């Protein structure tokens, strides 16, 4: 056994350099919010929804600056125009009442010699025919169809009955194909076998004063008859009064999003204050406050909405948005209040709160340092879920006519208008309905993602 003494370097006894830390942190420390944001980013659905919400805000706030069209301006020449429809129009002379030619008689039996008096346009279609020599004809009925008449004599829409051998049609003429039929009537007004059909494809017409009024002539003083013009562009088409859909959707979104953001913000705020007071105080005060909340839950929303409208003296034809907002704030807070109260009750009993209290923390410190930050996640999730429900409530109330007053657009009101023409002009309902659906879905998915991201128990589980 050799006498071995340990050999230690001299500097082994020198104090360690303080700069050298024993544990090197490999990742930057993450706060609760940073971690939540990181997990939200990993959630593709939530991120896509966030993108949609951002785009929606841009559409609503910046859209009207880019697309400067009055959402209430009528365009009677382009009523219920589908998106991307042909907009070319031909300049024609101003409309003059028609002086029909003197009637002439047909030369052979069973013939009417139906013809157009002038080249037909969407301004007017003028038909003339000859008085038949058949003696059983005492009058005429004029039909119009947009489908070919065919062998089954599908004449279409009866326009009028007349005793004269001429007729002018100005009813809702669109640039498309028309089939006109004139049928002879006997002395009892019944249809005879004598009829003639004529077809045409109309060109859209516009007069010079109309074009000037709409600013389509640009710098031109006038335009020659027969010139082709482009009518005002409506990228998403127009509604039943020729109002621009895109601009109506943008302005309509303002109402929807206003209610969608402000109502939840306000009633969640009320709910948070109410719930935290009840939860923090506890005991009989808590019992009393929560029973009052139960009472408010039982109140019918629609009835109160109508009552508020009456009480605030909101007359007919005025916007019902403010009473809607107030009704929502007054009636919808108990949900949040219950949630927050539950959280506070729980947190109040946590060990760190007791510790903090033992260390002499004042009530204000307890609330703002411990209680509120720990309920923020729950509150945020509540707000995100409340937004789509508020948007939907607004759409529903406007749909039943309790919301905005015409001509102010709102998505719900636009749906209500569009549903009447669902089969013939589907774009009038598809756009607002799609926007409501997408918005509500986006907020719900975002809320879902937020709930996952803010749930502390799911921390570090990715």
């Amino acid at each position, binding site marked *: 056994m050799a006498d071995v003494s340990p050999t230690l370097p001299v500097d082994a006894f020198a104090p360690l350099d303080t700069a050298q830390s024993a544990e090197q942190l490999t990742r930057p420390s993450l706060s609760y919010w940073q971690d939540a944001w990181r997990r939200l980013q990993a959630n593709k659905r939530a991120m896509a929804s966030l993108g949609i919400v951002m785009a929606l805000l841009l559409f609503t706030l910046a859209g009207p600056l880019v697309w400067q069209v009055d959402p209430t301006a009528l365009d009677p020449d382009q009523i219920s125009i589908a998106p991307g429809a042909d907009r070319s129009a031909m300049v024609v002379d101003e409309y003059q009442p028609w002086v029909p030619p003197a009637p002439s008689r047909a030369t052979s039996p069973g013939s009417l010699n139906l013809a157009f008096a002038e080249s037909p346009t969407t301004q007017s279609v003028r038909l003339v025919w000859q008085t038949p020599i058949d003696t059983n004809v005492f009058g005429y009925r004029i039909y119009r169809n947009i489908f070919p008449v065919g062998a089954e004599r599908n004449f279409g829409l009866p326009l009028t009955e007349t005793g004269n051998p001429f007729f002018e049609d100005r009813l809702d003429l669109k640039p498309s194909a028309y089939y006109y039929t004139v049928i002879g009537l006997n002395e009892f007004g019944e249809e005879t076998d004598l009829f003639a059909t004529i077809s045409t494809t109309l060109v859209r017409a516009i007069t010079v004063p109309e074009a000037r009024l709409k600013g389509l002539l640009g710098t031109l003083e006038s335009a020659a008859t027969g010139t082709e013009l482009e009518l005002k562009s409506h990228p998403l088409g127009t509604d039943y*009064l020729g109002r621009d859909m895109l601009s109506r959707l943008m302005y309509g979104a303002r109402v929807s999003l206003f209610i969608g953001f402000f109502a939840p913000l306000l009633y969640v705020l009320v709910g948070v204050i109410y719930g935290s007071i009840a939860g923090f105080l506890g005991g009989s005060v808590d019992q009393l406050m929560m029973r009052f909340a139960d009472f408010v839950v039982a109140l019918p929303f629609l009835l109160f909405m109508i009552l508020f409208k009456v009480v605030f003296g909101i007359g007919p034809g005025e916007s019902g948005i403010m009473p809607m907002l107030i009704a929502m704030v007054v009636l919808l807070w108990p949900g949040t209040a219950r949630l927050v109260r539950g959280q506070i009750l729980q947190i109040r009993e946590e060990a760190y709160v007791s510790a903090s209290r033992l260390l002499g923390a004042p009530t204000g410190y307890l609330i703002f340092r411990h209680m509120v930050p720990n309920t923020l996640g729950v509150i945020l999730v509540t707000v995100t879920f409340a937004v789509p429900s508020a948007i939907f409530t607004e759409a529903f109330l406007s749909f039943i006519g309790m919301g905005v*007053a015409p001509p102010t657009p709102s998505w719900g009101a636009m749906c209500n208008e569009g549903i009447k023409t669902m089969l013939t002009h589907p774009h009038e309902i598809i756009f607002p309905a799609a926007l409501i659906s997408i918005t509500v879905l986006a907020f719900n998915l975002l809320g879902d993602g937020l709930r996952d991201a803010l749930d502390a128990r799911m921390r570090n589980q990715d």
Partner: protein
Amino acid sequence: MHETITETHSTAPSNKAVFSQLRRYFLYAFIAVGVLMFVLDYLASSVGSDTQEARAVDFETQSIAIAIAEEPPQLNSSLATDAVSGMVLGHIMEGLLRMGVDDQLEAGIAERWEVTPETATFWLRKDARWSDGEPITAKDFLFAWQTALDPDNASEYAFLLYAIKNAEAINQGNLPLTDLGVRIPDPHTLVVELERPVPFFDKMVVFPTFLPIRQDFYEATGGRFGADAKDLLYSGPFVMASWVHGSSLLLQKNPYYWDKDRIRLNEINVAYITSDVNARINFFKDERIAFTGLQAENLIDAMRQKWPIKRYQDGTVFFLEFNHREDRLSENLNFRRALQSVLDMEELVYKVTKLPGYRPGESLFPTFLMGVEKSFRQEYPATKIPVDYAQARAYLAQAKEELGLAEWPEFVLLCGDNPISNIQSEWVQGALKKHLGLTLKIDKQIFKQRLAKMTAGDFDLVLAGWGPDYNDPLTFGDLFASWNLNNRGRYASPEMDRLIAVAQNASTPQSRMEAFAGIQQLIIDDAVILPMYERGLTYVLHPKLKGVKRRVIGADTDFTNAYVER
């Protein structure tokens, strides 16, 4: 311990086991839903009404099914005012006279009649019977008229009876009911003493207010007269076999009707009561109903389906009525003229309303009214006010000056709450904003509420309509008399009252029609109202259903002469 371990195993089974279990659940769920559907279907068919089996037309039984827009609000003929009640009453009741297929007066319960300047005499037929077999006598008419005039009953249409001597005083409670100027020399003769000469009194008795009511039956119902099928006694071609409130009505041929050989239908099943036009069109598509009206949105579909589309003008004139009360800005003539020259009714009719049969409004008098020889409007064409925006703005500026206003306040446009009114009111709103910079608030109200607000004068402008009560220009002509309660804008002008008095008392048709022409011109010059359009209705009929009559005056739609073709 052992148990715990096996349990752990069972909670983590293999994927295969999960799938087989899922499949089993799906199967159970599928079977359960299927069984539930059958059970519900069986229950629905056993407790549901027979409306499910409604068939549009049936040749063998000569029965048809139709739908109406709303439950008849009032089948007590002395109180009824609306078109739906009028339509039902037109099938279950018959009065002294009726309108024939050719729109001429026909003998009804009265087989002969005579109108002189002092009296109108009706000789009732002896074989006319109530649906319980009792004869219909002159007393039943007298009782009905007294009931309508009784101030306690507050019948809104009592004024139609004012042509009868003392009727107005009775209705205002100044005379007892027994003082009504009606004599009954024998049970089958009715002599009506007239307050003033009314040459068209025979045309007036077609109106539901003049229908007979039998006193003993009326009193036996204890105030429920007309409230249910059993609380009605029928004098017309059909009786009401059942009335499921809010859902359906069943009309069957009346075996006691004096003219029952004329009636070919055995049954009219009012199978659906719905105001939803699209629902009615779907019923028509499914051959559940034989008749339905169309709106502009449905026309393309109807053409595509190759339905036989029909149309007719119902004689109702719609107009924008101003409030002429003194505290209103619309009382200013130049303001009214500005609106008159800015609203292009042709644009409204041809581009916004888009229904065939609608005619741009030019006059208060619709085109069907007869003048001396030809139609009134052919004899006296209305002056047309051209659309002129510059002129309109000049009028408006003048009005602003006269009224001493710095800015125009908002105006209230009162209108009905239905799709057509909504579109039209928004069109008016848009046009006034665009061309005159005026702001309008739209006040949508249901019919009753709109009438109440019109009566109270709670509007600046109102979209109103007026349909004829009887076939004479006077039914429109006296509308803006200062004494007429239906003059809701309270227009009052001595010239108007003078012209109406001339029209009421004129001796020759020529001078009467000239008075009406004067009224027509005054309404345009003074911009009392702005005629918007004359309504036309577009509808489809089942191709096998024949003889259906649409009417301007009287019960519309009339199925009493209808039949089903093989």
